[in-house]
């Protein structure tokens, strides 16, 4: 699917917008965090669904953003003022830079979209987590705690994002605008270029497109998006740990996107919200059975709904009368 | 004996590549299929071999109804294919290629009669198939199909890309297979001289359907009847 569906998108964002009037605070806090996971899922849908680069390391960039935000907000970065808002700006840049460097090395390997690429991203995620665990500067396996929240410089004095309602609305505004931006990008000629490279890199190269460049840009852009999501997450959670940039969260994100649908950012984001909500509801009850259910769920979705559960639905909505 | 009635096949559901094909091929006979590029000749032989999805129609091999069978089952039932331009396993030696043919036909190997028929291959038995010359490779492809001990042989443009003197030898080999071994051949061929020499019956294919059929002798007398369809 190339076009992001307008009506379902509007419906989701409007439903979330009126939520503060109805839902209790704890649910809003939880949803605000899940929206950060949703952004991570969106970034993965971008590299995987649009770019054709299955990434087992998307959480590395989420974690990079989270750690960078923590370091800036806690004043641990020498020469950088400890302004949380500055951390929010620097986080996507740092994550993008990390992805650019990693992509520069990895994407030039043969068959970049196939097994070698996927295995390399797997290894990258493992190494990133190991590095964070062994680094005392990053707090080792304990991570960094006591991260100050974001403060918005409003005319009537700075507003600290601690209460659920303003925090939720702030995250919601960012998530909705990023979704809009990404959807427009995907529908634009540049987005078509990305899909052309995914479908047939050789033919794209014959048309004068440099597949490596396109892939590197998508990988970097998606990492920046993941980095921003990570910073937003750290600002709310007040705590970062190595598990934020490891294989565990990376593959969890893969589940959200596989379940939701990799073809559309909306489907991926909804997949994250859906799986996370179900996890909150059933996780405690199922215990270790939850990851088992998750594993079986992924297998079932891949076998039965190759476009994802929501993605398949959206596709059918987008093209009525052409039911297969 | 192979019989197809109303065979329709193709990859796309709506637009079948071959439509309503009727044909009959008996042991010891040669049925030739001619037509322009894109007429559906390769699709026809591939469909008979089970390599192109069957849509409708009946295909009988002996007593068995084989339409919709998987290719390995059709091959094991005695219908061997020599595909266009290839038909050898690259990277495997000549002997291994022939052993695979024998394995596919559930036959023993080595096969002394087969080696005797292809002395050039015996000399190169331990060479990888992709290091052979074009003519030798074509021989190997036919020999590989024969190692299956098929009842019927489907040949997709066997003379394509090999030099004229070798086409002559190829004709001798195919004639021998029919007359001595009693095999039935379905021959897709552009070389009309070869068709005239071997065919008992000729089908003319155009846009996936049979537009004309004539006896081999008729083609020899009035080649213009076919050449018209071939755009010659």
């Amino acid at each position, binding site marked *: 699917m190339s076009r992001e569906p307008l009506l379902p998108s509007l419906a989701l964002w409007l439903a979330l917008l009126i939520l503060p009037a109805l839902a209790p605070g704890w649910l809003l806090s939880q949803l605000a965090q899940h929206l950060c996971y949703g952004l991570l899922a969106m970034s993965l849908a971008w590299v995987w669904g649009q770019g054709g680069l299955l990434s087992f390391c998307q959480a590395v960039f989420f974690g990079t953003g989270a750690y960078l935000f923590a370091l800036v907000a806690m004043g641990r970065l020498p020469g950088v003022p400890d302004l949380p808002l500055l951390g929010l700006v620097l986080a996507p840049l740092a994550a993008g830079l990390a992805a650019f460097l990693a992509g520069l090395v990895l994407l*030039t390997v043969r068959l970049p979209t196939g097994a070698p690429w996927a295995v390399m991203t797997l290894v990258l995620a493992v*190494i990133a987590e190991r590095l964070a665990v062994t680094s005392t500067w990053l707090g080792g396996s304990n991570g960094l705690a006591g991260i100050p929240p974001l403060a918005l410089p409003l005319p009537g004095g700075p507003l600290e994002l601690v209460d659920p309602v303003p925090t939720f609305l702030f995250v919601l505004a960012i998530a909705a605008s990023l979704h809009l931006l990404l959807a427009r990008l995907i529908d634009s000629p540049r987005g078509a270029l990305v899909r052309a490279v995914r479908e047939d890199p050789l033919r794209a190269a014959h048309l004068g497109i440099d597949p490596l460049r396109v892939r590197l840009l998508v990988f970097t852009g998606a990492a920046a998006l993941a980095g921003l999501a990570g910073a937003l997450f750290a600002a709310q959670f007040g705590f970062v740990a190595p598990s934020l940039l490891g294989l565990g969260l990376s593959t969890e994100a893969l*589940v959200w996107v596989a379940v939701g649908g990799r073809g559309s950012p909306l489907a991926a984001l909804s997949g994250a919200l859906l799986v996370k909500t179900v996890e909150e509801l059933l996780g405690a009850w199922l215990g270790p059975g939850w990851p088992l259910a998750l594993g079986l769920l992924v297998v079932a979705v*891949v076998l039965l709904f190759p476009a994802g559960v929501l993605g398949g639905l959206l596709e059918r909505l987008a093209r009525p009368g052409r039911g297969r | 004996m192979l019989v197809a009635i109303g065979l329709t096949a193709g990859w796309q559901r709506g637009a079948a590549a071959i439509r309503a094909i009727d044909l009959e091929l008996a042991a010891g006979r040669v049925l030739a299929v001619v037509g322009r590029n894109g007429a559906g000749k390769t699709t026809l032989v591939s469909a008979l071999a089970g390599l192109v999805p069957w849509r409708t129609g009946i295909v009988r091999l002996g007593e068995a109804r084989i339409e919709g069978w998987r290719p*390995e089952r059709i091959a094991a039932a005695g219908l*061997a294919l020599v595909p266009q331009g290839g038909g050898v396993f690259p990277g495997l030696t000549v002997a291994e290629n022939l052993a695979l043919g024998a*394995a596919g036909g559930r036959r023993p190997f080595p096969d002394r009669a087969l080696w005797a028929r292809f002395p050039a291959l015996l000399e190169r038995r331990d060479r990888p198939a992709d290091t052979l010359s074009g003519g030798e490779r074509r021989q190997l492809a036919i020999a590989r199909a024969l190692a*299956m001990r098929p009842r019927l042989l489907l040949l997709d443009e066997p003379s394509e890309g090999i030099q004229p003197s070798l086409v002559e030898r190829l004709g001798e080999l195919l004639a021998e297979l029919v007359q001595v071994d009693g095999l039935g051949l379905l021959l897709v061929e552009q070389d009309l001289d070869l068709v005239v020499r071997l065919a008992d019956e000729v089908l003319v294919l155009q846009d996936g359907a049979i537009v004309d059929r004539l006896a081999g002798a008729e083609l020899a007398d009035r080649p213009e009847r076919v050449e018209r369809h071939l755009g010659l």
Partner: protein
Amino acid sequence: MAADPSWPLLLLDAASHVLTLLLVALGLAVTFGLMGVINLAHGGLVVLGAYTVFAVERAGLGFWAGLLAAPLLVGLVGLVLQILIVRRIQHRPLDTLVATWGVGLAIEQTIVLVFGAASHTVAPPFTTTVAIAGSSYPAYRLFVMAVALAATGFTLWLLLRTRLGLMVRGTVADRRLAAATGLPIRRLDAGTFAYGSGLAGLAGAVTAPLMSIDPQMGTGFLLPAFLAVLVAPFAGPLGTVAGAGLVGGTESFVSAVASPVAAQLVVLAGAVVLLRLAAGRRVGRER
């Protein structure tokens, strides 16, 4: 490790590491290298093999019964996996990756549910030591090395010297032609995948007494093994031997002189460089 480890022992440890890796990579060389199936459940299958030995031993049937049961059981699991899942999505490599990862997770969590998340130990069947270079070396480690070499040799023999192996190679060389030649390609696919899975089970079973086993140890096996298959300088199981030597050798050497994290980084960097070189070679051949 002792303050002044003698070189023969260090080399022996490295060889043990390489051969253990080879045993895990061998199964991948069959399923991934040969059949092209990117099986992320391979790590889970190794763990399953280790827990099979643990369960059989706990049931009082002894280690050797477990060692025999593990490859059979895991091979059977692989067969079911191929028929139910892999066969249907094999033509979509990325989906195969995701689905087999899900299977790996399911295997891992099933083991957690049955045996708990804590680690266990499997007692080696013999604790004799052999005197090598003035120190004593556990004989069981030598046994594991022998099993790795025997499994490699057997796989090579199967592939290169038997009619079954020839049929597998034919199917790999040209699937369509193999089908048109009458080879039972679907059964060959399933059988090959089951064999590769059985090798994973054997690897887990035979190495179980060398370490404490836990449900999460699969990834630690999977990644170096995948790298070993990826950097294999030439196709086939022999290439995997070389790949395992490269990856395992580098890993144990850098671990000894620096740290395990450094070893992982060096292996990753080395793999990238080797794949770059291989890409250059490939392009050169196409021209």
